């Protein structure tokens, strides 16, 4: 009997099965796709964290231990793929004589670097000028000494005669912080900044250089074994962190105290763990509303056929079917819908995964694929049970045959409405949002070195409560408007339907329950699309801002250390085809007290023509525009980092004396500035402390207008091509970088998440849900009214009369859904961006609005309403008799 029943359903009422199955499929596909995103994102973060590390382990050889033995122990580990022994020696300072003047620096470090080191650890040393081997001077030291390849640099050693070397090349040490870490010291005891002055010697020269120092002052020389370990690690950053940490501890145990591991790889994975937790939160924030919406859609589709199902049950009962038999039939129908829905959903997710992430699997590993597919199927079956099986079971259990043959519609307010649950949810949502905001929206706490991560899922309650509360409030409002608005509605429809519009207004008012449901579903779908799209656009804008902060502009020309490019060179660059604007930026090093920091001299009136300055880059003193205006009006103004403000107890207006190198004498001179604001981020500036000042003032006081970098704006077009043209013009004398190349390499590991793939998946689902909410739900409502339209037609209604009904209903759903959806979408987008502040780097100063997507959403929603309305009108005059006689 069950088979016969299901075969009959598929043959006679395929849309009843397919419609509900599609709803289930959307939820399954969305969850499986987002699961795929999460797994993919975690794997991407792990890979990114691994790639970001130049030297995986820095194994410090203990005092008195044999470096060769430690090196042998490290090299012998199965997880170690290569290792080199590096010497470190603390020296008193460096000096060099150039252009008739002698410059001297403070204390520094000399490294002994073995052959093949740069090849094994390519990320540790970057050649800027001259040779990549031999005696290499760090960029900042070269700037301090005005040294270049060929310059003789003298090293002062404690209690020993100085030693002189000829510089072969100038290098950058991108990971100086980790290279000069205090191995084994807790985070709080680490040096606040790497040494300002560094010289790298080949191993042979280093050995002869360090031998007398090690003999006299063994405390000033030490040895590290740098190792590259296997990167075959678990895809999850947390698991990879555990694996790497375990291996490092194993090495320390095996060395019996002779070795202490500076585990750079674990440190990178440690940071990625927090980002992975954020990715999980993103999944919950952005994915669950869509899945819940798909579930509501399924319930609505199922409810559309509930009346027919009840009649069938009534007929079967009249013909002697037992309650058990009816339950079996209902269960088999639900199982069929669940199976079809899950199958289609997993198939769609597989296809989406292949398109969006380049992988047809639901996760980075087979285990995660099975896990996510299983979870998505469970969610799909839960929706099937909740939306189809339970209502049908309730009908079987509670309805009598007589009741099933009636169509009693009660307009009693639902329980949540009578008790004000909607208002309470909305108010609680705002309270939770406020409470979470007090904590600075710190959703993820991943204490450094501690395996456990704390995720504040409580913060989820704010958007969840706002989402649910606002949806119910919109339900209440639309219901209220339709209940009391039959006359205004009739007047609005009068131009189409004449005097029949009054009756149509009354009809819509009495049919408000399904219309309100459709309007609320459309509200939720539009809100989902708007909030998701806005969040994603803001995320993308901030990732772009991050790339621009790192690179400085679309294309950046960075002058070699020691070069003295004139600002007038900007005019030459401006003539290159594709260049929209060029802005010279000075780059100096300035001492504040004993602390050496970068200083950027800018032209405050024109800097924004070549690069974007967001208000969020500045924390005190005003907006970006206001602070640039201040720099222009008062040239001795200076913007300072928050850390410097704190360290030196500065208040706005304070005088700061910086020591800068005079371009004429090459000697340090004191230049007075006045502190006017706090800068957190600035194009090309490092993450730590730096200054921003007026370039004219700096040039005037130091006698040099030498430019450190030229920021080039291309208008965002043909960046790579313009960069190539610029390279041809500037030649080898300067480094040319473009934002396209930088995009893929900057930012936190969370930025490495393939957000483009996630965006494609989510926004596609948002459009599908909006189309289904507008078209499908309204269409189902119209289908339910088809008999009424046929009766009207049989009574002599013309097309305009039928249009009044269709336009009235579509208008109510469309207008209420659009207004509610936009309001709720904007609210949720703001809440999401606030609550997920930790995801953004830098934090956004304003929300990015994806107008093109929103336009497409509006067009699609309107098109669905129009198509369904036109289709309803078209079929309203077909098969009148068949429709009228259907009962």
């Amino acid at each position: 009997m069950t088979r016969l029943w299901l075969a009959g359903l598929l043959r006679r009422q395929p849309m009843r099965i397919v419609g509900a199955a599609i709803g289930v499929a959307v939820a399954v596909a969305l969850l499986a796709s987002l699961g795929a995103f999460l797994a993919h994102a975690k794997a991407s973060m792990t890979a990114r964290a691994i790639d970001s590390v130049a030297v995986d382990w820095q194994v410090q050889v203990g005092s008195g231990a044999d470096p060769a033995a430690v090196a042998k122990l490290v090299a012998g580990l199965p997880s170690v793929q290569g290792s080199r022994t590096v010497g470190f020696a603390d020296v008193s300072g460096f000096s060099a004589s150039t252009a008739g003047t002698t410059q001297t620096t403070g204390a520094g470090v000399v490294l002994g670097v073995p052959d093949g080191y740069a090849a094994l650890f390519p990320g540790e040393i970057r050649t800027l000028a001259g040779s990549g081997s031999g005696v290499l001077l760090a960029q900042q030291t070269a700037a301090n000494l005005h040294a270049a390849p060929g310059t003789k640099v003298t090293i002062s050693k404690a209690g020993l005669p100085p030693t002189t070397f000829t510089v072969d090349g100038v290098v950058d040490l991108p990971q100086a912080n980790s290279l000069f870490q205090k191995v084994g010291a807790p985070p709080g005891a680490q040096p606040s900044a790497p040494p300002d002055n560094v010289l790298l010697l080949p191993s042979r020269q280093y050995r002869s250089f360090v031998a007398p120092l090690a003999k006299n002052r063994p405390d000033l020389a030490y040895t590290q074994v740098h190792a590259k370990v296997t990167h075959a690690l678990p895809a999850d950053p947390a698991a990879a962190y555990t694996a790497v940490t375990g291996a490092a501890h194993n090495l320390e145990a095996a060395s019996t105290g002779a070795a202490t591991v500076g585990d750079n790889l674990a440190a990178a994975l440690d940071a990625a763990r927090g980002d992975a937790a954020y990715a999980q939160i993103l999944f919950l924030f952005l994915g669950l509303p869509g899945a819940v919406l798909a579930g509501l859609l399924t319930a609505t589709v199922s409810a559309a056929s509930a009346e027919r199902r009840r009649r069938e049950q009534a007929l079967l009962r009249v013909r002697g079917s037992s309650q058990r038999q009816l339950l079996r039939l209902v269960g088999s129908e639900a199982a069929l819908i669940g199976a079809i829905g899950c199958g289609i959903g997993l198939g769609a997710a597989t296809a989406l995964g292949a398109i969006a992430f380049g992988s047809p699997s639901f996760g980075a590993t087979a285990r995660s694929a099975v896990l996510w597919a299983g979870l998505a199927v469970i969610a799909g079956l839960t929706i099937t049970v909740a939306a189809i099986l339970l209502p049908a079971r309730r009908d079987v259990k509670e309805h009598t045959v007589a009741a099933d043959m009636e169509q009693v519609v009660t307009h009693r307010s639902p329980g949540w409405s009578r008790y004000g649950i909607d208002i309470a949810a909305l108010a609680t949502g705002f309270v939770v949002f406020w409470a979470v905001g007090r904590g600075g929206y710190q959703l993820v706490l991943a204490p450094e070195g501690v395996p456990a991560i704390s995720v504040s899922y409580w913060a989820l309650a704010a958007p969840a409560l706002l989402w649910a509360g606002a949806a119910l409030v919109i339900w209440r409002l639309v219901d209220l408007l339709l209940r009391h608005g039959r006359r205004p509605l009739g007047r609005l429809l009068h131009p189409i339907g004449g005097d029949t519009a009054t009756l149509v207004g009354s009809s819509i008012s009495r049919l408000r329950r399904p219309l309100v449901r459709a309007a609320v579903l459309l509200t939720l779908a539009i809100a989902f699309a708007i909030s998701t799209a806005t969040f994603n656009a803001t995320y993308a804008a901030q990732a772009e801002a991050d790339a621009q902060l790192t690179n400085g502009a679309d294309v950046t020309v960075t002058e070699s250390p020691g070069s003295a490019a004139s600002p007038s060179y900007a005019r030459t660059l401006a003539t290159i085809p594709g260049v929209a604007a060029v802005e010279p930026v000075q780059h100096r090093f300035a001492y504040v007290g004993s602390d050496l920091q970068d200083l950027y001299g800018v032209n405050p009136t024109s800097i924004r023509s070549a690069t974007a300055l967001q208000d969020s880059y500045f924390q005190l003193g005003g907006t970006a525009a206001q602070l640039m205006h201040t720099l222009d009006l008062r040239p001795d103004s200076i913007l300072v980092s928050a850390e410097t403000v704190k360290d030196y107890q500065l208040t706005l207006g304070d005088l700061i004396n910086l020591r800068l190198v005079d371009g004429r004498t090459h000697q340090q001179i004191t230049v007075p500035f006045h502190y006017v604001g706090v800068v957190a981020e600035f194009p090309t500036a490092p993450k730590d402390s730096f200054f921003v000042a007026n370039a004219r003032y700096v040039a005037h006081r130091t006698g040099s207008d030498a430019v450190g970098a030229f920021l080039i704006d291309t208008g965002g077009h043909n960046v790579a091509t313009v960069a190539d043209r610029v390279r041809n013009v500037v030649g080898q004398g300067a480094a040319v970088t473009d934002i396209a190349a930088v995009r893929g390499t900057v930012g936190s590991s969370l930025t490495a998440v393939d957000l483009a793939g996630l965006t494609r998946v989510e926004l596609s689902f948002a459009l599908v849900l909006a189309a289904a909410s507008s078209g499908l739900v309204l269409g189902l409502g119209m289908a339910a009214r088809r008999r009424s339209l046929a009766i009207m037609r049989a009574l002599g209604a013309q097309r305009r009369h039928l249009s009044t009904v269709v336009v009235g209903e579509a208008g109510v759903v469309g207008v209420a859904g659009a207004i509610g959806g936009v309001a709720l979408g904007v609210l949720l987008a703001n809440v999401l961006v606030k609550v997920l502040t930790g995801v953004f780097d830098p934090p956004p100063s304003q929300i990015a609005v994806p107008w093109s997507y929103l336009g497409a959403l509006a067009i699609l929603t309107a098109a669905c309403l129009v198509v369904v309305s036109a289709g309803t009108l078209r079929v309203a005059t077909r098969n009148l008799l068949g429709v009228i006689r259907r009962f």
Partner: protein
Amino acid sequence: MQPSDIAGTDAAGAHAHRLSTATAGTPRAVLGQPLISCAGAGRTFGARGRPVVALYDTTCTIVADDRIAITGPSGSGKSTLLHLLAGLEEPTVGTVTWPALDRRPHDPGHVGLVFQAPTLIPSLTVAENVRLPLLLAGHTTATATARAAAALDLLQLEPLGLDLPQQLSGGQAQRVVIARVLASQPLAILADEPTSQLDRATADHVMDVLLQAADEAGAALVVATHDQSVAGRMAQNWPISDGRLLADEPVPSLTRPRPTAFGLDDWRTGS
């Protein structure tokens, strides 16, 4: 015998005076003038491979004040003939014309239709349902309201005016449909199995109301039914079998006297 031989007889001269109550502007039929004419009209359903003839070539004429029962078992073609007469279906052969009408038959004010199941719009009240065809015909709200109220009053349904159809019994709902027909003052009332879903007592009452309404409107009444007791109350009986209209059968006697008034208080609450 050819169906043309069974053209309606002029048996209702007594109703001629009622035609004067027709709404101004609505064309009224003259006694004896053909309202609906079928000339060799037939209807075939189904695909080309397996055609099913529902009604063979039929020729007949309906004139004002006719009281005709089209009788036959289920599937005999009586509903098909009725739908052709109402213009709800197009004949596949032959023609159906409405000589007394200036527009399509289902335009308001021409042909009133009563179906097997009540055809009320569930989201409109009883009064609004009755008012609807008048508004569709272009009457003002005031006129439609007045005529609907009069029709409901005539059928003693006014107390139900604010009820929704779902609150009515089957008999009450059919009576509202008849009131709606009456309010439109049609030239012909075509009823397709109007009592088949009702119990005997309710069916008799609905037929009383239907006949009364036809009298009030001065309209021809054609009822398709398989119920001989219903057919027995009509002046003519057109039996139909396997899609062929047979000879007119004599009506032995009315099985129940025609009601003299709408004083049917015992039906107020329906069945």
